[in-house]
């Protein structure tokens, strides 16, 4: 396939995207990722060639709209069960490092 345009991300770009995605990359990972992500985005650039004037975006397959359920209590409280896989909890709360000094 022939690409319309080559995308060339820098290591700084990758660092910025990684920050948005909250992934703490090591320095050594940046260069290979810049190459891989650029290649994928270059592939994706082929979309540019498509004429989509007046085309409605399709977010979801199928024709029916989402259902609404009755506004009644359907689930029982299972806090302890659902918190059981958490790394750190106390008194029903999830614990994280101090946010406010």
């Amino acid at each position, binding site marked *: *396939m022939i690409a319309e345009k080559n995308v060339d991300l820098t290591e700084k770009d*990758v660092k910025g*995207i*990684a920050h*948005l*995605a*909250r*992934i*703490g*990359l*090591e320095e050594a990972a940046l260069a290979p*990722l810049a190459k*891989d*992500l650029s*290649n*994928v*985005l270059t*592939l*994706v*650039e*082929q*979309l*540019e060639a*498509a004429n*989509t004037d007046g*085309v*409605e*975006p*399709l*977010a*979801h*397959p*199928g024709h*029916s709209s*989402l*259902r609404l*359920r009755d506004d009644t209590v*359907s689930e029982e409280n*299972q806090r302890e*069960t*659902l*918190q*059981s*896989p*958490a*790394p*750190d909890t106390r008194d029903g709360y*999830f614990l*994280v*490092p*101090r*946010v406010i000094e």
Partner: protein
Amino acid sequence: MHEKTLAEQSRLLASGEISSSELTNHYLERIERLDGDLNSLITVTGAAAKKAATAADEKRKAGDDSPLLGIPIVQKDIFCTKDVLTTCGSRMLENFVAPYDATVVSKLDTAGMVNLGKANMDEFAMGSSNENSYFGPVANPWNRKCVPGGSSGGSAALVAARLAPAATGTDTGGSIRQPAAFCGLTGIKPTYGRVSRYGMIAFASSLDQGGPLAHTAEDCAMLLQAMAGEDERDSTSSHEPVPDFSSSLQQPLTGLKIGVPEEYFSAGLDDAVASCVQSSLAEMEKLGATLKSVSLPNQSLCIPAYYVVAPAEASSNLSRFDGVRFGHRCENAQDIEDLYKRSRDEGFGSEVKRRIMIGTYALSAGYYDAYYLKAQKVRRLISDDFANAFADVDLVAGPTTPTPAFETGAKSDDPVSMYLNDLYTVSANLSGLPALSMPCGMVDGLPVGLQLLGNYFDEVRVLNAAYQFQQATDWHTLAPNGIE
């Protein structure tokens, strides 16, 4: 016993010739003896399986004649299983014991199936080779040097090696059909919404769909029967009535119109694969079907559109893995941002990070219109192409994959060449249509898959055509060497 199909085992159980305990012990022994080299299972639940088998045998004695009662199955490790490790192939969930069952799991449980364990898979279902699993790659039973496909690679390898008569899979861009093709199996991705996604760890929510992998269309019809149906816990599950998927299997193909897209037989398709597919289409014609050339003008845009939509949804879905509520947490976090960033860096493998970052980029300010919105518009064009085709034909047929299984390591350094494996499969996910892959030939000792796509909620017709093809051919009966 393991040379029988699931449907045959169902009949043997019904007639009392075998018991579920015998069948279950037989497969557990095979797993123990044969899975070492394959690495197709992450977790084996032997004790619970034996207990479930005994319970199934007791139910049968009490008069229960459910068709799947007492038949073993393996769940892809993307489905949450209560009190059982559910890893999704990731270090992130290495120690995650699910607190509840996925709807698919509880439905198959209710149908009386015996769960033998959890199948290996590409991490978070991202991959076409099963090389992206934190728990190691899976070998293809037909040729151990080759990949089994992905992301349901463990499911496909274990059914091909007769370690279970069937397994569940999920398909976001071909993850049931491509491994089914690579391992010589029949697998179906139902219409989007046919099977509940509750408890199925989300990759791309508008594309993900669960389905079965087994040896025959008849087996898949029986399994889909138990898996399908509206679920109040998944608002995207369809309220469309569930038909009897087995009722029309026997119907002859006389009058069936099969569309053959000209775009499927162009650059990128291996000649030997093309020739297998052409021969099977000729077989369909012999069985009474009419072939008609159709056009899918936007076919070449499927991969680019998919690799925007799927990563965009993935970046959103996988933001839940933050080291706070479940999953991997880094040691000695300095602050909350450090906690997020290091937990995610350590917990995710490289392909998952790539896709999250592509998605994050495509959704970020300034790029949203150019990438995400553009891809959604192209998605509409792709979907419309199929609507036009289905105005003239009942099914669309073509190759499942451009080549047979490739060697492990051959594409693992080049994401783009790996993505091109999905050339023929992603369109069914983008449009939401049902699609099946079944064995239709062999090339250099490796199976080749034929793909059949149906109109929305027309799995009955897809399964009927596949069943009739399998009555006339024996590709689906072949087994890898050393497995017989």
